């Protein structure tokens, strides 16, 4: 039997594995400001999409009998609208890369994508 081994410390709680899992064995649910990702103990499909899709290489296949794993993440809330939009680990993964391109931490890091859209629209309107 092929088991799914997920390294808790590597997982950033993104949507990659749950999005690519065609039979929906890996599930992701956002309730309030909590994100729950549930992994099955084993997977018999001839497929390694989740393993390939993981941005941090947190998923590996093993042998033997595993047990189902549920990971919980706390979601960061948008400072403008209050909607939970990303896990802290996701932002910690994204921000250094973004800061490298922009040459510093952006001020919009506390906003959800919708509010960023709105804020940049207001800024653009104010410039003319």
């Amino acid at each position: 039997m092929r088991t799914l081994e997920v390294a808790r410390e590597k997982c950033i709680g993104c949507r990659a594995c749950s999005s690519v899992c065609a039979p929906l064995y890996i599930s992701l649910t956002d309730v309030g400001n909590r994100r729950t990702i549930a992994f099955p103990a084993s997977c018999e499909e001839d497929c390694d999409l989740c393993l390939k899709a993981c941005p941090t290489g947190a998923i590996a296949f093993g042998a033997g009998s595993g047990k189902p794993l549920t990971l919980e993440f706390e979601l960061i809330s948008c400072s403008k609208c209050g909607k939970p939009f990303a896990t802290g680990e996701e932002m910690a993964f994204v921000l250094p890369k973004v800061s490298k391109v922009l040459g510093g931490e952006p001020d919009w890091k506390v906003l959800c994508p919708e509010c960023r859209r709105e804020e940049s629209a207001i800024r653009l309107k104010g410039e003319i």
Partner: protein
Amino acid sequence: MGYEVLIRPERCISCFACEVACAREHDGLSNVWVLPAGVPMLCRQCQNATCLEVCYTGALEQRDGEVILHKDKCTGCELCLLACPFGAIGLDGKRAYKCDLCSHRRREGLMPACVLTCPAGAISYSCVADFSHRKRGIAGLSWATGHERRGR
């Protein structure tokens, strides 16, 4: 010089025609958003694209001044959404989506749908040099006549 979709927010009348046109061209999902401020927002095709930096599968690619999204490579991880300063990338269930400048239309020599549809001329498809030349002309005319002009 390359052609770009350029916005003139002062002309936007918030009619949502661009959203409808975009949705029609992209299987019912609009890649442009008209915001309450009266500005159509869409992917800026950034030169220093932050989304490219976080995409680890090569689904986002920069070519000829455009940021292209290859949906077949997209895992739907949502990291590019979190990296975009303008919130110009959306997530449709399991895949990201963004403005592709109507690549299928441009192949046939047609303009992007939002540009063609905008009744107010708030979205234009031109190169930066032509765009700024026109804006300078309008500004000069406004100054000379003492009236505010919003010519096309």
